[in-house]
């Protein structure tokens, strides 16, 4: 009797701990402020690199959107650039053909259109998996690009839409050569988008996604509306990728069909893998490390850069499956274990 009571008590205690963990998970921990402090710090420490900085943040946002579907829902896609492109061209065509120069409304339009694209393609394609899904998503992105080239009279083709003009932010902040306004603008958008992503991830919906990723059969078995959930997250991720694309066009004042390139999809996937999937901040680490390394190393020798990135991928898969962030976490755990004993 006493033994089973003991076991019961243990079980209850474990369950309570689990419940507490789930309830508390979403609260902000202080290390989470770190990336934002660093980002703002860079603004003051490296004012001459803000053009580059904006591009890093945009890639970060793009990688974050991919993490939602790759890291959390476990969907492997090769066509995420399609949504980046839709967002980029919404703003580009709006500015070039319709004279729509207000940036924030352009951003929202881009997000909506990209999300629509995500919804439509997701609804059809997310019934498939594996190589089939890879090929279908890739083909979708390429066909969008080909369509753009077919009507290059509208899209500007590979020479793109030049000289796009955007009105000052809130009618006040204009864009300078040094990219200061752009950097803060992108950072603000990133922060808002991140807040939403974080809420999604820590919500019951986010839990369901993890369930789908880990064991989709069981999710079906417990009656979870898997397809609907997947399409929802795909739509949201597409919308966020669209925002990244829109920011790209706005900060560069230029867009070409190369935004749909497979290279774009591959690059953001590599960043995410290197940083660590399914852990929110993996996108941060991955995008920053990749872009900074590329910037430094390709100045020395582009061939070595390509070799280096290939090598890093191989090493990451073999020894650091959870990416750089995983390594950092491991190190942190080792340190705290040491300090405890």
């Amino acid at each position, binding site marked *: 009797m006493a033994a089973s009571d003991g076991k019961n008590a243990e079980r209850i205690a474990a369950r309570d701990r689990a419940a507490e963990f789930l309830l508390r998970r979403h609260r902000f921990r202080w290390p989470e402020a770190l990336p934002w402090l660093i980002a703002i710090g860079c603004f003051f420490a490296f004012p*001459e*690199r803000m*053009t*580059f900085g904006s*591009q890093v943040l945009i890639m970060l946002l793009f990688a974050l959107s991919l993490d939602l579907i790759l890291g959390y829902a476990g969907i492997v896609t090769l066509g995420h650039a399609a949504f980046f492109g839709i967002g980029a061209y919404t703003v580009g065509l709006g500015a070039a053909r319709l004279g729509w120069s207000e940036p924030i409304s352009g951003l929202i339009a881009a997000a909506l259109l990209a999300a629509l694209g995500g919804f439509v393609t997701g609804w059809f394609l997310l019934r498939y998996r594996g190589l089939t899904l890879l090929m279908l998503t890739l083909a979708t992105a390429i066909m969008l690009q080909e369509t753009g*080239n077919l009507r*290059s009279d509208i899209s500007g*083709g*590979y*020479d*793109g839409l*030049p*000289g796009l003009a955007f009105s000052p932010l809130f009618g006040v902040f204009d864009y300078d*050569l*040094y*990219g200061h306004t752009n950097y803060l603008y992108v950072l603000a958008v990133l922060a808002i988008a991140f807040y939403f992503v974080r809420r999604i991830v820590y919500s019951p919906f986010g839990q369901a996604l993890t369930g789908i990723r880990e064991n989709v059969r069981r999710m079906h078995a417990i009656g979870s509306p898997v397809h609907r959930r997947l399409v929802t997250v795909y739509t949201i991720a597409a919308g966020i990728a669209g925002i990244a694309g829109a920011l*790209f066009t706005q900060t*560069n*004042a*230029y867009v*070409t069909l*190369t*935004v749909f*390139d497979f*290279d774009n999809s591959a690059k953001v996937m590599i960043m995410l893998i290197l940083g660590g999937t399914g852990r929110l901040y993996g996108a941060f680490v991955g995008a920053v490390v990749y872009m900074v390394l590329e910037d430094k190393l*390709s*100045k020395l020798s*582009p*061939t070595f*850069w*390509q070799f280096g990135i290939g090598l890093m991928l191989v090493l990451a898969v073999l020894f650091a499956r959870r990416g750089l962030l995983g390594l950092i976490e491991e190190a942190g755990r080792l340190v705290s274990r040491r300090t405890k004993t």
Partner: protein
Amino acid sequence: MKLVRWLGLAALAAMVGGSAQAQTVKIGVVLPFSGANADLGHQIDKAFDLYVKLHAKDIAPYQVEIVKRDEGPPTGAAAKTVTTELITNDKVQLVTGFVFSPSAIALAPVISQSKVPMVIANAGTAWITNLSPYIVRLSFSMWHPAFPMGAYAFNKIGCKTVAMAYTDFPPGKDSTEAFKTGFEKAGGKIVDSIPLGSPVQVPDFTPFFQKIKDEKPDCMYVFIPSGAHAAGVMKAYGELGMRKAGVKLIGPMDLVPDNKLQDMGDAAIGTIVMGHYAVDLDNAQNKAFNKEWHDAYGPDSYPDFMSAAGWDTMHAIFDTIKKLKGDMGDGMKVVDAMKGWSADGPRGQVMIDPATRDIVEDEHALEVYRKPDGKLGERVLGTTQAVKDECKELKVGRCGS
């Protein structure tokens, strides 16, 4: 006493050193050094390096300091970032290079805002020079070789009907539009215009060319990015026996790039192209240029039209430094100094048109033939002198703005 003398000398040295600093002109070079188009970047970079090495003493006491950056892929974004940083961080007084039109297009607003001149060594979309008053081009626009080829093909080669084939991206469209304008003006008839797929992958040209062969035009005008595509075109043309079937092959000089010509074999013999440069061009400057090139880079390395343009670009920059006595700080002054610049270069006589800031150069009709020593070469059949960019002259499309 000794101390004072040393201090005095030191002060003098510092002053001389300081003013010598002011004599250094900082130039940013933006070319693709990585990726699929790295070979294009290297062709121009080699020409830049060679010119600087051989002529550094000509601009003494001034010096150039060159900062090189990777133009990246033809998306424009990488070029924009690195060039903006060259201007804001490295504080270059001039940027040059630019293989891809999207790079130059993306940068036009930055160039205008910063007032740092952009001297284009390659990018060929015609209306680029209209985008900013600080843009000068030393290379060409697609219209330079293509438009005169139209009239030449009709009048001198006997092409009454022509089928056009082009890689499906802006340079291809521009080139065929230019050819068509010139050709139809002379009285010719275009029977077909076939896009050849994207510039990224070399396609199998056979189905496209088979169709043209079946249409039996007098001539076939082909535009492809020079390099691997050119080799593919020549192979398909040869395999299908098109010359035997009576379809002559014509195009701009991109069709028979000098560094791939030897590999093209018999299929290339008889091809007529219009271009502003060929390794075999018979002028003193070119002979010297080729000799210097082979001395520096070996007997198997060949310059091409990009290298020639790169050479002339650096030449123009150096002459401007001399003219302005090293004072390159005012962008508009630099551009004004370049307007009307003319010189003899490997391409023959070249000039910068003061009205458009674009190049004015001779275009030669070149025929591929087998030289007595067994190698393939190009001989000049005729020359149209001092060709301007007809797109801007005729104000076609975007060139009119």
